[in-house]
């Protein structure tokens, strides 16, 4: 009964199922490509404040002195946010689906609506590359994005090229939200391997010491 209660708590929100990006195995190359794509598609409006001295970021031309400085009241009081930590607080899948989730909607100012964040202030940055998507059904709850969105007109990129482009941007954003990842993964096997050996030594030492006590105890019993 208790289990049922808990299961009941989880399934109560209605939203489309977010897509997960498929990061390539050549992570570093993808992040580099993503930094370039970010410089091209995002940096004209969004800043990357916490990556001031990151070599990869600077190489792509993302320099904080070139970032657009928005007045506080621009975009109806919501100036484009800094993207250094966006995947950390929005979630990777959210950002990825959001970037691929624009569709044509004549009722909205600007002509595009977003399936993940309805009413978003950001104009569709990819309409030329991706082409235009349309919404197939209003009933989007618990549906995958490809089930409800369809490409109507072709863009300058093939769907695969566009997906790679967006995925690389997300890969770069993930990297920017925590650049320590490569370091951490590099140190982890050494640290954990070292500890594993330490634990093995200590278990054996413990057994040797305690054999004494157990012997003594058995002796007392008899």
């Amino acid at each position, binding site marked *: 009964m208790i289990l049922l209660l808990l299961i009941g708590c989880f399934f109560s929100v209605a939203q489309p199922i977010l897509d997960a990006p498929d990061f390539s195995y050549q992570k570093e190359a993808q992040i580099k490509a993503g930094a370039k794509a970010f410089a091209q598609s995002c940096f004209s409006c969004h800043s990357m404040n916490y990556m001031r001295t990151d070599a990869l970021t600077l190489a792509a031309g993302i320099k904080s002195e070139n970032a657009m400085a928005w007045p506080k009241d621009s975009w109806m009081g919501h100036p484009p946010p800094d993207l250094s930590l966006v995947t950390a607080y929005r979630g990777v899948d959210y950002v990825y689906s959001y970037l691929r989730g624009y569709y044509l909607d004549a009722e909205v100012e600007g002509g595009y609506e977003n399936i993940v964040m309805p009413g978003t202030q950001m104009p569709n940055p990819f309409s030329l590359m991706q082409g235009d998507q349309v919404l197939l059904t209003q009933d989007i709850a618990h549906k995958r994005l490809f089930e409800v969105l369809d490409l109507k007109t072709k863009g300058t990129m093939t769907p695969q090229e566009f997906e790679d482009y967006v995925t690389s941007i997300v890969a770069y954003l993930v990297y920017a939200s925590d650049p320590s990842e490569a370091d951490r993964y590099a140190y982890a096997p050494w640290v954990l391997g070292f500890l594993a050996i*330490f634990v093995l030594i200590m278990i054996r030492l413990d057994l040797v010491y305690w054999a004494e006590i157990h012997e003594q105890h058995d002796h007392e019993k008899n």
Partner: protein
Amino acid sequence: MSEVDLKKRRLLQSAGAWGVLGIVGAAVPFLQSLNPSRVTRLKGMPVEVDVSNMSEGQQKTVMWRGKPVWIIKRSKEMLASLDVLQGNLRDPGSESSSQPSYAQNQYRSVDPNYLVLLGVCTHLGCAPTYRPEKGAIDSEWQGGFFCSCHGSKFDLAGRVFDGVPAPTNLEVPPYHFKDGALVIGEEGE
């Protein structure tokens, strides 16, 4: 010694060695983090200065790694004055002073026309003042640097005079000329 004791001792030794190794390893990041951060290192990068339009006798001061670096364009007379009080210097050949090998000469510079010095007195770290005019400090004064903190005197090559508290000549930072510009904080090729 029994077999058990031998085993115990062997295990204790390996546990101890492994433990010490672990503690040393764990100390590395803690100590390493105290070193300058990436931002500080970038701020400590070489500084490029345009010296082409300096007039004779002019002093320029730039900051490099938190210290003032002076650049002085010396005139012919200034260079000639270096010989006058040669005998009163403590370390005329800069043997016990700190400078790159290419600045260990009479002019203490790569190009005699340009003097590059760290503006920090070798006595206790005060900032000496540039006094190029003859006779400014005493009757013999040929122009040079005077530290008002404790009265140390240096000539126009930053060489220290005898009988003042400063022990050595003013330091010369690593520098080189690149395409006519002066680069401070980096050795030339």
